[in-house]
């Protein structure tokens, strides 16, 4: 039975802190983050890599934690929404989302922020079309997306 499989030790840097974790080989990164590390910012929704609510960054790349094995993160660095701000000082993306009204129910917000962070690392000067393309894996059901796109473009502008 799968839950009897021996645990695997992994070393992961989570939001800048080195962690040694014992995880089941089939454990999903999302469950480890939420249940073992009490990092609840990444949300479970579609379970199928469609909605983006569980998005975190692994070595800077946006991944769906709902379908990413925790053991795959061994030796890597994971960034969650809890690690975005520098102390009380918000990341420009967080500030832009807050000011632009890009947050409504908030369930998609952490995934949107991390997806945008990954995009800006790749492309510091995105066009609106670039942002729309990058958000194809990030669903929001509250906003009409316009404020989210505006916030991302605004944050990119601020960062330059």
């Amino acid at each position, binding site marked *: 039975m*799968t*839950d009897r499989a021996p645990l695997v030790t992994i070393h992961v840097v989570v939001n800048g802190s080195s962690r040694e974790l014992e995880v089941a080989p089939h454990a999903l990164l999302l469950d480890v983050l*939420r249940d073992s590390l009490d*990092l*609840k*910012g*990444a*949300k*479970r*929704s*579609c*379970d*199928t890599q*469609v*909605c983006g*609510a569980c998005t975190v960054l692994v070595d800077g790349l946006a991944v769906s934690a709902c379908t990413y094995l925790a053991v795959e993160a061994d030796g890597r660095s994971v960034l*969650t*929404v*809890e690690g*975005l*701000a520098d102390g009380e000082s*918000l990341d420009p993306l*967080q500030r832009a*989302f*807050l*000011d632009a*009204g890009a*947050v*409504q*129910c*908030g*369930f*998609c*917000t*952490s995934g949107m*922020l991390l997806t945008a962070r990954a995009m800006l690392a790749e492309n510091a000067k995105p066009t609106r079309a670039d*942002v*729309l*393309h990058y*958000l*194809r894996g*990030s*669903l*929001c*059901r*509250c*906003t*009409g*997306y*316009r*404020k*989210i*796109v505006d916030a991302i473009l605004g944050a990119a502008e601020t960062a330059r």
Partner: protein
Amino acid sequence: MSARPLRVVGQPVPRVDALEKVTGRARYVTDLTLPGMAHARVLRSPYAHARVNRVDVSRARALPGVFAVLAGADLTWCDPYYGPAYRDRPVLAIDVARYEGDPVAAVAAVDEATAERALELIDVDYEPLAAVMTLEEALAPGAPLVHVGQPPAGHFADLSTLRPRPGTNICHQFHFARGDASAALAGADVVVQDAYRFPSVQHVALEPHAVLAAWDEAGALTLWASTQNPYSVRMELAKMFDVPLARIRVVVPHLGGGFGSKTYAKLEPLAATLARAAGRPVRVAASIPEAFQTVRRCASRVEMRVGFRRDGTLVAVECDADYDVGAYADIGPRVVQKGTYTATGPYRVSHVRLEARAVYTNTTPGGAFRGFGVPQLAWALESLFDVAADRLKRDPVDLRRQNFLAHGEEFAPGDTPIDGKLEESLGRAAEAIGWTQTAAADRGRGVAAMLKASVAPSVSEAIVRLHADGSVTVLASAVEMGQGTRTVLAQIAAEVLSVALDRVTVVQPDTAVTPYDQTTSSSRSTAMTGRAVQVAAEDVREQLLAVAAQSLGLPTRDLALVDGAVVAPSRRLTYAEALTLRFGMSGGELIGRGVIAPGRTTAPLGGSTPFWEMAVGAAEVSVDEETGAVRVERYVSVADVGRAINPLTLEGQDEGGVVQGLGHTLLEEMLYADGHLLNGTLLVYRVPRADDAPPELECRFVENADGSGPFGAKGAGEGSLIPVSPAVANALARLTGVRLRELPLTPERVWRALRARSPRT
């Protein structure tokens, strides 16, 4: 006191909960844990309709780590039935499973994996029965019955008029008439008529339904639930378990979207039942596929006949609407009744005959979804208005303008007079879309209007507390689900009490703490809960002025509240100082109370709507003639909101409403075949993405401070969604000459219609 300019109300301030949301600190139900908490999984019927002969849970109960396994037959120690319209729904199937996904058994175990394994050990003897999957099948003579026998009425007084028709699948019929519609249609110069279909669609709140339930040692029940109606849920549970209301506590943390999907009891009865059986806290967390098996919008077939005089005057409307409410009534009968009541939209018409039926089928229960029955009817009426404009050789904007109800005009005897200016919304929408300018050759433009009543009668109560340091607590039970109500309520209290917004805290709903509020739906929170908060804050203000007047020896008319202080011409007393004077120490607080309860009236549905929601949409579309793909290039929504308490959150709501409306207009439809839902996951059920939203999207507001809510506000948030389908279809018709009557406007449907089109001259 002289009227001061508004300071906080009307400002586009960021939401009060934005910081906790952008930092990941906001807590939703599934983020909560309790010591000893068990996890639940639900065994659901694989059949659309089946007799459940036997459920053997013995092997599942024996699995280590399992705390409780329940089937319908085990629920002898409570009333297992619930439902707001009819109590027709058992917590777990009793004898019959009525749709694919109907809960048959449930497990609480140490973790979800163990619970899932236990489900596999449950042995169910099903005997498949003939199912009715569509309106046509359910209404056919001799159709198999989804329910046999008459279910008991639900718990709302305003729903007590609902009656099923025994021996059929019709669970409610609605009839409304004035004048003589058939004679008026016979005498009309132009009559347009057709049947319009609206699909089943799911809300897809990104947070699926979730509940954490715990009984304490004294027999009291607490639930942390993703619900839009904590007080309705409390009443259902009190009935089921025969426990006083005071011993049931429903706490609502942040909600990850609602849109109607979280109105009335959903998973709460199951969670409470399992927690009682397991003797420990139990969390039930649905997946997205389970949300598709929990609630959806009622699909419909609406046939309308609309008659005009040659001069464009609307003279008569006949409507026969059938709504598919699925396997259990939920609030479906009320959707049908209330939606159909306003089937004639925002127009003046003397002769009306409206008939509607709520029809059971063996599909996911249909319930509340943003628009509450109105989008289905507006799809028909607003399409037919353009068909009529064509026949009458009239401009569709002018034809609507000619027939709009005027400000102050009666909609129906006893109901609230029209409280907005439709012509202003239409004029601004037409101007913004450039209606009078020629569109590019490959673009078409269309408009549509809407009118919707809010729930009536309804009750909202609020408590406002002014503390010793001058900070303020607002206690109210409007649920924050993304629409911004916490921010709006904070702004209202801050305005009345003249304090900074960050001095106000709005407590999350908790039936043990925050006072009664009927429901967070029907666009009612700003107008009703907001008004209760305003009255409660005014109560505090009067107490504060009385305290200050006494200490300063001045009449209250010489005093004003300014920036956290009571100010007289020559004196200034901070709130902290005033409270110290009142209580003789730095302690104590002033408590204000607001109750908004307009009660029953002679209006046709038993209550007069507190406001009319009114909006106009204008779309500019293009179509790929090779593929049939429709693209909405520009969209303008204008809503008559009375006053925008917070233009930023309001704009977010209406932009979201438009894009959600584009979902059922272009993309979304729950598809069934052979009794099975084919597309109940987000892999195959497409909701709008960022690149599906109109490249140009503008939401504007008419603000004449003519609403009954605080500072002249009315409700908003549903209005922007409702005109989207007809506005887009009208634009498509004006561009291509094809008129589609079935949503969504998929590329295939559009392509077929384009192919079938007679050559244009």
